[in-house]
């Protein structure tokens, strides 16, 4: 029997980026807000302190900051005619656990999606005709536009102290910025990070080819920064330990470095760690949530009553909770009906390694220190002759030169022995990698549901992921890889190594932690779980926030958009829902 806890106004499931943003906003309204976090409490000092965080074995190889599959995982298969097996190790993607969530161990790549991305289906059909979208592709418009989200992107960027250079200020193209981006209301809060040797080489090569390279936007502070909440950040030291590490210098934006110092001082906010939320409890009408059920680390069950339940966990975790709670009709790929679990998507990546004569000093890096081009993203180019949808950016990142995982060797190098050592000595300081970061369409064959066989530690069915890259995306990725190869060759390297992405999708090698969809937003309750304000169509006092809201995935890292959506939803709750609790959009 679950112990009943003292009711609160708002319970947040998870305590990462979205929960921190929403908690900060809703506590301003005087609401009693509680966050339930499955992982441990974590602070910059001592948990990410510079004295010990640069431990590649502990954090990158052994996944010190990630979700532990031994406690929580999902099953996976490529297609619905296969039997899914549980994922016992993290590979392709690495969700975080603990206070700050994956917002602690991300790189800081903070992009905005393109205006066209938010109306992808109507835009593609308008430009290329309805027949251009394959029958099994289920892309759709977001129900929110870029212009509507712009002020919220801006808030997230100023919260984080993003370093970058605007390419489009109020419709006016800016030199050195990304000329393809949507209009910004103002410049980035901080100038770009110092350019790395690799960035400069990419910049030169890309310009020679007629592209418009720019400094990628980075939530790694290029200067000391004090954000609008008065929280201070230190300047990035280019230590090269961003991705999969916490930042000990208060330079990488995370909930800890941007919000928590203010939020945790509020009397109307509290949080509990070690809490595995397993279900949103609905009343007997099924139209109203009463709270959530959770287990603590000793396996005791609690019921936490709340007026408002907001799911702020990782994308797939949010969907798992919806399925376990019976919120939204589960998606059925055969009849193409139902919504919960529908439109799962991912990111398609590839790279071209270039072995150069110049000294690169790769260890001087930052998570989002990179030079990029956007010529082949979204619908920035004519897709007519190519016959596929979507695109991605091409970038040269200088994230670091860690000894175990961050080195590159020419094709054909033996994997051990004196020849391996010689090649390593020759190439460690003299190689770069150009990567492509491609969109992934949503499709009937890619979805999340409950596994019929495997159960979690609480005896609940595991989440089952069914996913493979669509042919559209593999062709798109080949196209992008070709363009990346062109830039690599323009750098006049000694040799290159083209690493295409080929099917089928596998969960073994790391790709990106950019899992999207499953609880998508939209204007139509038949094809979305939440309305444009991220409110559940079926249960209006439940909101779901995160990359699970993306109707398909676009050619950028998701966090900028996730942050903007969190501010957007918080604003709707503050200024609309609290005045009149109930559906914010009539179906």
């Amino acid at each position, binding site marked *: 029997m679950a112990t009943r806890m003292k009711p609160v106004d708002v319970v947040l499931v998870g305590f990462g980026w979205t929960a921190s943003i929403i908690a900060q906003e809703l506590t301003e309204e005087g609401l009693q807000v509680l966050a339930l976090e499955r992982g441990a409490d974590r602070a910059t000092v001592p948990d990410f*302190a510079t004295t010990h965080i640069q431990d590649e074995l502990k954090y990158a190889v052994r996944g010190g900051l990630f979700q532990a599959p031994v406690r929580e995982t999902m099953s996976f298969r490529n297609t619905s005619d296969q039997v899914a097996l549980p994922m016992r190790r993290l590979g392709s993607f690495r969700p975080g656990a603990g206070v700050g969530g994956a917002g602690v161990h991300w790189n800081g790549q903070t992009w905005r999606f393109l205006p066209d991305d938010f109306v992808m289906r109507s835009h593609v059909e308008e430009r290329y005709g309805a027949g251009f979208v394959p029958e099994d592709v289920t892309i759709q418009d977001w129900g929110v536009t870029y212009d509507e989200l712009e002020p919220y992107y801006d808030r997230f960027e100023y919260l984080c102290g993003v370093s970058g250079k605007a390419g489009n200020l109020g419709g006016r193209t800016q030199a050195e910025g990304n000329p393809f981006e949507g209009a910004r209301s103002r410049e980035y809060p901080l100038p770009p990070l110092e350019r790395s040797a690799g960035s400069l080489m990419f910049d030169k090569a890309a310009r020679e080819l007629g592209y418009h390279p720019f400094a990628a936007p980075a939530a790694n502070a290029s200067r000391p920064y004090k954000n609008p909440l*008065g929280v201070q950040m230190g*300047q990035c030291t280019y230590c090269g330990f961003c991705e999969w590490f916490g930042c000990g210098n208060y330079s990488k934006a995370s909930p800890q470095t941007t919000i928590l110092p203010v939020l945790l001082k509020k009397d109307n906010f509290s949080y509990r760690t070690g809490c595995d939320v397993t279900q949103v409890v609905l009343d007997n009408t099924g139209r109203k949530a009463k709270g959530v059920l959770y287990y603590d680390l000793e396996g005791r069950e609690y019921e936490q009553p709340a007026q408002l339940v907001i799911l702020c966990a990782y994308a797939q975790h949010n969907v798992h909770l919806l399925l376990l709670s019976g919120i939204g009709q589960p998606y059925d790929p055969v009849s193409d009906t139902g919504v919960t679990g529908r439109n799962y998507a991912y990111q398609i990546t590839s790279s071209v390694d270039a072995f150069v004569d110049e000294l690169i000093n790769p260890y001087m890096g930052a998570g989002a220190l990179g030079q990029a081009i956007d010529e082949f993203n979204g619908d920035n180019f004519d897709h007519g002759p190519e016959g596929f949808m979507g695109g991605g950016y091409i970038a040269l990142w200088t994230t670091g030169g860690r000894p175990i995982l961050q080195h590159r060797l020419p094709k054909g190098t033996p994997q051990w022995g004196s020849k391996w050592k010689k090649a390593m000595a020759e190439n460690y300081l003299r190689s770069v990698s150009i990567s492509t970061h491609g969109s992934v369409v949503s499709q009937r064959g890619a979805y999340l549901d409950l596994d019929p066989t495997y159960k979690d530690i609480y005896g609940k069915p595991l989440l089952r992921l069914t996913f493979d890259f669509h042919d559209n995306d593999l062709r798109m990725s080949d196209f992008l890889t070709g363009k990346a190869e062109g830039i690599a060759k323009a750098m006049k390297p000694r040799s290159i190594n083209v690493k295409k992405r080929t099917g089928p999708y596998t969960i073994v090698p790391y790709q990106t932690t950019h899992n999207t969809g499953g609880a998508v937003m939209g204007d139509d309750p038949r094809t979305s779980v939440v309305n444009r304000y991220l409110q559940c169509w079926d249960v209006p006092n439940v909101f779901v926030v995160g990359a699970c809201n993306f109707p398909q995935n676009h050619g950028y890292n998701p966090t900028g958009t996730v942050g903007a959506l969190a501010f957007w939803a918080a604003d709707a709750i503050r200024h609309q829902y609290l005045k009149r609790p109930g559906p914010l959009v009539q179906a």
Partner: protein
Amino acid sequence: MHMTRQNLAGLTLLAGAAVLAGGARAQGTEFTNVQRGRYLAQASDCISCHTVKGGKPFAGGYPLETPFGTIYSSNITPDLATGIGNWSKDDFYRALHSGIRKDGQHLYPACPYPWFTKMTREDVDAIKDYLDTLEPVRAIAPDNELMWPLGWRQLVAGWNLLFFDEGEFIDRPDKSRLWNRGAYLVNGAGHCAACHSPKNMLGATDRDHALRGGDAGESWFAPSLTSHERDGLGTWSTQDIVQYLSTGANANTASAGPMTEVVMNSTQHLSKQDLTAIATYLKDIPAHDTGQADDHDGDDKAVTQEVMARGKAVYVDQCMGCHMADGEGQEDAFPRLAGSVPVHAEQPQSLIQVVLGGEFMADPAELPTGLGMPGFAWKLDDRQVADVLTFVRNNWGNKASAVTPEQVAKVRDALHEYGPRHERLISQSVH
């Protein structure tokens, strides 16, 4: 694990209290008098010594380490049996003014009555009025652990005879009102000199050398507050001092250890007018004689090229990311070391404490971050700590005595014994 932040809601200063307290003498309504009392209790920093982390505010039991043993603070909540609920205002005034408890026994001068004696009767009464509004807590402090024969309180009478000048503050007519208010706060309620002055063998403040820096207990050193340019506040403007006392940080440095407690529990709550008064008074204290020449041809023979080279190597590896190669720190973030006053402290104990135990900056609402520095006790040995601190104290134009491995070892022992001071901060929520 159920985490909620330290809840001190009952102690939060209400807006307006600061205004009411700005030197007001007139007896107001009972409510405003209680407000004034709370403000003065904050100015006196009663809570820092009379509260144990995790315990009830003002319920006492906090161990004060002295060279003579441990003295546990008393319960000053209005509990009738174990607190001061049955003390009259006269009793309370006698304690603060004369150092005599209600039962006629002497207080140990660990309670700063040698400073509180300067406070007016009205102010002391207001503090009592405020304390009487607190939740009574039944709590008895542990017995003191003092060396023989100091357990016999009557000895304090002799101490008082030698070192205690009873009497309220008297305005100096040749000085401004602001100066006098500052002097009253610094030498009365604020009892700054209790830490910031040298003490004699019997633990009494050396009044001839007041505010030249002194032992702050548990191997912390409170630096000089005179107008000396290196070892003092000579380079600080009045505004620098006000900013430091309001937030724990300014362009020159950031607070650490016991001073962070003072900022969090006391000075951040004071009105800007009172802080300006304090600064005005401090700025008028002449520079003391450090016995060192002011040019940079150091006279400390221990500052050798070899030590500086070793210290620089440690600095580049461990410190430079935040404090920067030029020692200037990062504006609006990490404290500067070049030209920083506490870096030049006569005794380096506090610097050693910060390096070994790590530190968090104060995190008042005005500057909420509470940036942290990790502890290096596990990573650097005594000589490395001594080298890097000698380097920091003698580079970028800094000039101060060398730090020895023996000094580091002593502080390391103290750190083992008492733990990092920031872990005892009753107000901080760090992330």
